[in-house]
């Protein structure tokens, strides 16, 4: 009889509560399943019982890493229903914050991946760089986690010291291109642990609706910033890194390349940001209507559906996060692999169970 190994929901090797159950022949995984829901907080239900202003604060807490994305999504959905125009300067500021959030998310993930690979010095390098991104976010917003930057119709704070943002981003760019990427893509230790491991085919990625760096590492070119541009993205130059291999190494390469693209986007946005107002009225009324919106979060496409009946409380708030569509692909990647590679394989999708379970 094949042994079934239950890992989690509470386990020292897992950062968040979830369960992976694997069946093995020797050390080889023959079947795997994922159990989620241990972080379920009923945030959609709660959001349909609070006012639009309260929902901004609530939805910022869907995730501790991509918190900005959720207020951006909710604000954008309200803007669509209410027909609000966002001032140009606010659109550029939204890009700067969104890309800084992507930087800190990718650097956090890279650090965790290095730790799992057993590469402690690179882990330290990643977290040292991430600290500089956190400093940028703190300098702009006053906060390191929940930035409280977005509101329907604009942003809450301006960027008052663009020179400091540019200096920090250029340091990150230099260290990433000169040190991080060469090591992460060429070091024999990294290659031995990651090349050819946890492959997700292009067809499987498409059938499961995988998004973000996971999909782009399996040959899919989708990126909402490019396919359905929002805010100021259509005015800025950037590349969408894509790899065809579909393995853990390809996911590392895609994310590492995206760090450079985010630096490039922040630099352009700060340098070309127009002067002007950063928002409209603080408390716009929301008429009856519905909207569905998407943005490209660090882990991939986030989707919100919002329905209003014209009162101050939305009637339906739907939140679909990237991990929700990426996590079901883990069993596809794990089958046939060694059980010792499972932590790295599941970490390679950069899962967020707080986002997933909401």
């Amino acid at each position, binding site marked *: 009889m094949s042994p079934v190994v239950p890992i989690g929901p509470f386990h020292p090797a897992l950062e968040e509560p979830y369960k992976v159950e694997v069946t093995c022949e020797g050390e080889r995984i023959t079947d795997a399943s994922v159990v989620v829901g241990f972080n379920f907080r009923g945030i959609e239900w709660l959001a349909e019982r609070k006012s639009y202003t309260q929902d901004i604060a609530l939805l910022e807490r869907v995730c501790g890493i991509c918190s900005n994305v959720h207020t951006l999504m909710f604000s954008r959905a309200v803007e669509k229903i209410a027909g609000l125009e966002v001032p140009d300067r606010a659109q550029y500021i939204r890009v700067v914050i969104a890309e800084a959030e992507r930087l800190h998310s990718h650097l956090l993930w890279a650090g965790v991946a290095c730790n799992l690979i057993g590469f402690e010095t690179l882990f330290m390098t990643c977290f040292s760089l991430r600290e500089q991104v956190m400093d940028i976010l703190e300098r702009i917003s006053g906060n390191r986690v929940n930035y409280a930057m977005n509101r329907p119709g604009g942003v809450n704070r301006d960027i008052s010291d663009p020179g400091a943002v540019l200096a920090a981003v250029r340091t990150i760019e230099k260290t990433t291109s000169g040190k991080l990427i060469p090591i992460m893509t060429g070091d024999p230790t990294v290659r031995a642990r990651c090349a050819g491991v946890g492959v997700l085919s292009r067809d499987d990625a498409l059938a499961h609706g995988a998004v973000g760096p996971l999909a782009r590492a399996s040959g899919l070119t989708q990126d909402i910033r490019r396919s359905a541009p929002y805010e100021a993205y259509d005015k800025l130059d950037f590349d969408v890194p894509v790899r065809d291999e579909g393995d853990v190494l390809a996911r590392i390469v895609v994310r590492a390349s995206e760090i450079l693209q985010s630096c490039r986007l922040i630099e352009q946005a700060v340098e070309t940001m127009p002067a002007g107002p950063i928002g409209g009225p603080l408390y716009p009324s929301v008429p009856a209507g519905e909207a569905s919106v998407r943005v490209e979060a660090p882990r991939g496409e986030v989707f919100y559906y919002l329905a209003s009946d014209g009162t*101050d409380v939305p009637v339906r708030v739907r939140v679909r996060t990237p991990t929700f569509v990426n996590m079901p692909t883990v069993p596809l990647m794990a089958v046939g692999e060694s059980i010792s590679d499972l932590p790295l394989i599941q970490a390679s999708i950069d899962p967020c169970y707080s986002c997933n379970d909401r």
Partner: protein
Amino acid sequence: MDVEALLRKLDDDAPCAPTATGYWAAWPDLDVRAMARLMRENVVRLVTITAVPEAGDALRIIYHWDADGELLNLSTTVMSGHVPTISDIVPGADWVEREIHDYYGLEFDGRSTTPPLMLREGDPPGLFARTRQQGNEADPARTAHAAIAVEEGEPR
């Protein structure tokens, strides 16, 4: 991709112009399995499915698709508490069907099992729907809608 031609394969009267949030179409008798097969054949990605409670026991089911960056929001209204599954055609629908079953108790016919996703084994499905059925006193949203009068420019 010619989105309008794709939509016309579902219905000759399908909308031919996008709104600010993509294409929207609603059919009371939408054949969801035919829609899923059409989307799969045309390499259109399922973004997610949204359930929206309506008057009585009605549930509006919106299938959101991505066709080369265009967002398609195709919906039908379910009165019976049952709708055919599409998870055997589009594997990406598996988790979201289980989630909707958890929240609203909607049965997706054709699935061999619908294990809970956010709830735990043995929990009754329809968590959100039950709160709604308990009426205004148990549902702060309904009282909040009625009680708060706000004016333009006031905190909401």
